[in-house]
């Protein structure tokens, strides 16, 4: 039989990657999370995690950092995205570039530079670990907020703003009743882009706080580097669980908007 080329064969390389680097690692994590060093089934890691105030504390701190970073990024990024999406400015490629360019440089390098800048202005990680970490996180994740918001706001119709004024909105109401509700899909995808990676971020808190701020990512890394495979894997599972939960939550939102939420 002659083997005929079909378009779907083009997916094969991707599937190989998917299996090697996503499916198998997940299975390995599940395996390690529920076995001891001899390979016997055990709930030790689960008991360890929920009985250790230290680990629960790390989870709580990470959640807090995630939420705080998301909120700050949105507050800073929203007006910028709005202005950039305005026709008057978005033809100015330079401004758009300035906001996107940092994304093209490896973030480990950038974080090193951030640390030096911060200590130069007197905010060294040793003295202000939380503040320095926060600044680093906001700086790194800001472009991820601006881009999805920007692409949603490009779709905003200038005449809708006029329509809102025409129907009786004052300037403040135009924002609360027309612009903001329409940009919610962008806000959600922006929040997704920031919240999860912040929780699991490792390099930024490690470098900027000089090891004083431990987020969930750092904690998992520590466990693995101490050969506590079970504990590390279980925490990774918790991480996965949070990802799944937040995906379910946001999917509820975007279903309402019928896929209008950008994939960003």
């Amino acid at each position, binding site marked *: 039989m002659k083997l005929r080329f079909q378009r779907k064969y083009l997916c094969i390389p991707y599937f190989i990657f998917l299996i090697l680097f996503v499916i198998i690692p997940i299975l390995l994590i599940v395996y390690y999370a529920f076995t001891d060093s001899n390979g016997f089934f055990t709930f030790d890691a689960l008991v360890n995690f929920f009985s250790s105030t230290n680990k629960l504390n790390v989870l709580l701190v990470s959640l807090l950092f995630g939420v705080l970073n998301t909120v700050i990024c949105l507050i800073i990024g929203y007006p910028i995205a709005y202005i950039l999406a305005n026709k008057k400015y978005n033809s100015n490629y330079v401004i758009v570039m300035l906001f996107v360019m940092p994304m093209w440089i490896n973030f480990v390098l950038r974080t090193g530079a951030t640390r030096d800048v911060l200590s130069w202005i007197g905010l060294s990680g040793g003295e202000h670990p939380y503040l320095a970490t926060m600044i680093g996180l906001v700086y790194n994740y800001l472009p991820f907020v601006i881009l999805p918001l920007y692409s949603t706001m490009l779709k905003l119709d200038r*005449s*809708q703003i006029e*329509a*809102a004024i*025409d*129907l*009786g909105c*004052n300037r403040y109401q135009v924002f609360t009743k*027309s612009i903001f509700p329409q940009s919610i899909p962008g806000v959600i995808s922006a929040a997704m882009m920031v919240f999860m990676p912040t929780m699991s971020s490792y390099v930024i808190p490690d470098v900027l706080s000089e090891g004083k701020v431990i987020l969930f990512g750092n904690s998992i890394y520590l466990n693995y580097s101490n050969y506590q495979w079970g504990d590390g894997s279980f925490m990774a599972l918790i991480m996965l669980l949070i990802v799944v939960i937040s995906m379910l939550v946001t999917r509820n939102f975007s279903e309402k908007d*019928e896929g209008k939420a950008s994939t960003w």
Partner: protein
Amino acid sequence: MDEKNYIIDLKNVSKIFDGVTVVDNFNLYVKKGEFITFLGPSGCGKSTTLRMIAGFEFPSKGEILLKGKDITNLPPNKRPINMVFQRYALFPHLDVYDNVAFGLRLKKIPIELKDENGNPILKINKEKVKQVKEDIRHTKRNKVLTNEEKENKLAELNEKLQHLLNNPEQAYKYRKLSNQEIDSKVARALKIVDLDSLEDRDISTLSGGQQQRVAIARAIVNEPEILLLDEPLGALDLKMRKDMQLELKEMHEKLGITFIYVTHDQEEALTMSDTIVVMKDGEIQQIGTPKMIYDEPKNAFVADFIGESNIFNATMIDKLKVRFLNTNFVCLDDYPLNEKVDVVVRPEDVVLTEVNKGHLNGIIKNRIFKGVNYEYTIMINKNELLVKDTKEYPLDKEVGLIIEPNSIHIMKKDFVTNIYTDAYISKDNKVCIDDAPFECNLTQLLPGSFIDEEGYLVSKDKKKKYNLTDALVVAEVDINDIEIIDNIDSDEAKVVGEIVDLVYKGDHYQLIVRTDNEEDFVCVTPYTYNLYDKVGININKDKIRLRLKKELSEYEA
């Protein structure tokens, strides 16, 4: 003059954007309950006028009065006027019901404040004070008014402000509409637009026509004094558009409110309006009922824009006698002897008959079947005449033409501009007037555009290219901008013609140079020429104003 009948009154309104006059000294009053249409080609200022009535733009000069009250600088949300937008501008995050209820939820109903004894409580009206202060701010920033005009206006406003501060008025408190009130109003509005069953539908699931209806419902539910419609049917297909035209007219009768409609579609304007305002270059050309505008166009532009028409240069040769197409006709309009006039003959008013049985003869050069009738292009010497007739005639047949006196409409010739309605763009981007190519500036058709090396017109953002070869245009040249070249053999003489008319006007001559093709160039000169002198004509390329007959988008490359 009883101004109370006028719902809206525009007095000497001008709008100037960056030194360009978009609307020029616009004077118009609209009676309550009228259906009025602003009609004109794109860029004629009709939308800007509408936006000034809505409050999205503020006039540079002049006043807008609503029921006699000055609303010139009032923001849109404080005007009892609602608008239906070109692309509907519905809110995609809300369903049909919430879209329609949007305005109602923002509405505040005033309740008179009274003290225990039932006497009205008086307070200084802060709203009005704020508005007068806003007016003062607008006046101070106005760059168009002269200093003197500004000072007068400011003095007037300051006086008004003092009056308001010294005279407390009835105070009000406000309440919002209750949910039941909103429910019943929304239901009624949706019933008017025939959408009563779609309350819960998402906007994105509606068809274009349904979205259009929601947009109308959203505006009329607020019970505005005036409903503004900015080319609302532009995005619909032909059949749908025709249905909506009739429905809009019906709605207008049912609601009894004033409709101000903007369109570039003359047929739409004729179908729906009580009154049509024909605009060009920010100026009103003619105001009248559809019938008046169709039957008695004031000038060649109106005649050309409204319906299909044959326009000829003509001369009054006797009392109630006019000569055009080398033939004398009896007419009903009385103009002075020897006056140069424009004559309009509608294609459906010409009757075809056998050779030599009509007023003149012509040869059928083209025939198009249009369903109801045939559209013939008939050559009479070198002139074309468009005729509509239900009978079928063969091509190249010579026929007789009857043009009755009552189908000849004579218009005073507008001697300010030469208008050439059958000009076209040649391959090398020149404009051909009377088959002679003139250098011209095509970039005027699109602000900010330029011509690239390949001869395409490129838009400012370089996203769109247009190939204008063979595009039909109307070319206009002021009489002062036509140069007379004495040496008819020089390169500068683009066309050569004979001086057929010569009028001395105190300090200059106004003369008409007629080419071999019977095209006339009206020009002025301080020098003396003799009748029947042969002269050449040249026109500076920047002085030729062009207007496409079709939309620019049809030429996109």
